[in-house]
């Protein structure tokens, strides 16, 4: 995280108990949900309305990439459109940079969208009759910025995504991955603090997708942007997200870091999801280590200070490497010069197998 001078505690987007119900009888259905707490199924039966997002609350902090992961129909696309009011919430508040966006008038809303929130779409949505440069400059053009200035800014944005040689081409000349980079450049050109990413890489093939993910993360971090990133791919969420929200049937079932979600899934649904995820690069020494006293009791002959040392944030992959290079079966986890715990081979195996953290400590 290169941009270290930013206040990561500042909340840019605060989504407070937001609901969205679609359908002709949406207001009545919403009322019934609040008063009688109907289930999604009952709402569909009784009111012919679909609950797309129910009681979603989360905060996007400055400088973080917040991934929302869910399968199709989980309401994630609706949720991201609520954030810039492309869709009006049924109830609930969305505060962007301290302002309730429901209270903005049309002009203020346009200004907020233009200045504070860029959006990148799954469909890319490049205008076919415009060149790459004109597409990247679109957001600035509709803000009424002069041609020379907007072309300079757009060119700089295209340089950031590595497309400076393609400015005079048309979108149809570009590959899918390049088109999506133009989409990102268009969002970056207006220099918003928040970038909404609506499944931008879903249509790309796996190798290109991974390159784009790394590039996106690098760019976002180096420019100090914040992002809400929608995806149906848990690997993508883990690769990109500082924090991840898992959505199911319109409900956010868990919010946490990749490690939290993999190590401590909130329910069976999330557990099923993370079952196939490799823990090697997710689980850190901190969550597989044993307390020093506990270790000393079981192996009194072993001198903790003589063990190979590692840091609490080393992942299992690194721990395995260090263990293999040494003769012993245990590593000392050192934080600020003090040994705070010991990782044993047994602990590493438990971490790889995905055993809950409490058992690790007890073992």
């Amino acid at each position, binding site marked *: 995280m290169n941009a270290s001078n930013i206040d990561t505690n500042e909340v840019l987007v605060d989504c407070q108990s937001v609901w969205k119900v679609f359908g002709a009888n949406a207001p009545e259905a919403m009322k019934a949900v609040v008063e009688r707490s109907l289930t999604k199924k009952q709402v569909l039966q009784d009111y012919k309305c679909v609950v797309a997002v129910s009681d979603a609350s989360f905060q996007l902090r400055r400088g973080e990439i917040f991934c929302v992961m869910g399968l199709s129909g989980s309401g994630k696309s609706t949720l991201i459109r609520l954030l810039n009011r492309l869709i009006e919430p049924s109830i609930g508040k969305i505060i962007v940079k301290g302002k309730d966006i429901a209270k903005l008038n049309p002009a203020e809303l346009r200004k907020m969208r233009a200045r504070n929130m860029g959006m990148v779409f799954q469909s890319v949505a490049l205008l076919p*009759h415009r060149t790459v440069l004109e597409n990247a400059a679109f957001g600035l053009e509709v803000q009424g910025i002069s041609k020379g200035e907007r072309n300079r800014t757009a060119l700089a944005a295209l340089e950031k995504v590595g497309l400076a040689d393609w400015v005079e081409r048309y979108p149809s000349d570009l590959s899918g991955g390049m088109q999506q980079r133009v989409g990102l450049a*268009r969002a970056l050109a207006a220099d918003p603090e928040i970038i909404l990413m609506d499944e931008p890489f879903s249509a790309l093939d796996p190798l290109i997708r991974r390159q784009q993910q790394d590039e996106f993360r690098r760019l976002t971090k180096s420019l100090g942007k914040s992002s809400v990133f929608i995806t149906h791919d848990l690997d993508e969420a883990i690769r990109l997200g500082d924090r991840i929200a898992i959505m199911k049937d319109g409900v956010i079932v868990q919010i946490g870091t990749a490690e939290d979600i993999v190590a401590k899934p909130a329910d069976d649904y999330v557990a099923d999801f993370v079952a196939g995820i490799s823990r090697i690069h997710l689980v850190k020494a901190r969550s597989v280590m044993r307390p020093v006293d506990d270790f000393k009791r079981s192996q009194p002959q072993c001198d903790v200070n003589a063990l190979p040392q590692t840091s609490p944030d080393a992942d299992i992959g690194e721990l395995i490497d260090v263990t293999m290079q040494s003769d012993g079966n245990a590593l000392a986890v050192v934080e600020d010069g003090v040994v705070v715990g010991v990782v044993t081979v047994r602990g590493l195996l438990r971490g790889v197998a995905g055993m809950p953290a409490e058992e690790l400590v007890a073992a």
Partner: protein
Amino acid sequence: MNLDLLRFSPGAYLAPVVDWLNRNFHPFFDAVTKFIEAVLGGIEAALLYPPPYAVIVAAVLLAAFIAGTRVAVVTALALAFCLLVGLWTASMQTLALVTVAVTISVFIAFPLGILASRYRNFEASIRPLLDMMQTVPPWVYLIPAVIIFSLGRVPAIIATIIYGIPPMLRLTTLAFNQVPKNFLELGHATGASPRSILFKIEIPAATPTLLVGLNQCILLSLAMVVLAGLVGAGGLGAEVTRGLTRMEMGLGLRAGLAIVAIAILLDRLSRGAVQRGQGTGAAKAT
């Protein structure tokens, strides 16, 4: 029961309305007549005053400038044909008539078409009217047009406009309904004003279909030109009518082919001009 009592005669209700309009709004219709006559007269004079070859050269240069070399060649061929079959004057009269009629049709149909794509109810309410305008034989509404505007070019132009509006309006509505939703979403998400969304996203994306609408409007308007001959509007329509009444196959055929030449000329020129205005990307997109 006497079935005659049930007989419905809309004319009995309409005729008094036409009479009433004619009696009370005569100055207004007179002004409309004078205005259209003046515009038509001006265009005709501009086309007929210089020698034909000068007009052809000017038109070819204009076509080359606004729509490219290929359209310039088509322009040269079409106008040369009109000159060589000896129908130059009639052709220029028709060109003026159709240009004015199409311009007015587009100015009425385009905004209404956009409204119809924005508001479903509006579209539903004008649909029967459009059906009627397209299917009622034009001779029928030529009658009130002649009553109100008297014989000549103006009733012909009014009838042509009425005939030209529905295809342009319908295709404008279709064109705007077909604009991909994600482009509109892009516009909203970027904070574009409704005006920017219209001019920078919707109209460019709708252009291919709008061009089909314009093409239909031009061709149907030209088809009406024959009818214009019947009410004394002159031009190629009068030549066709003359050919029919005198059973002169040659004259009818020459006039008919001249109409085709004018149609091709107007279509290619308008299409080229619109696409050029869009930049080369439009040509790629279509």
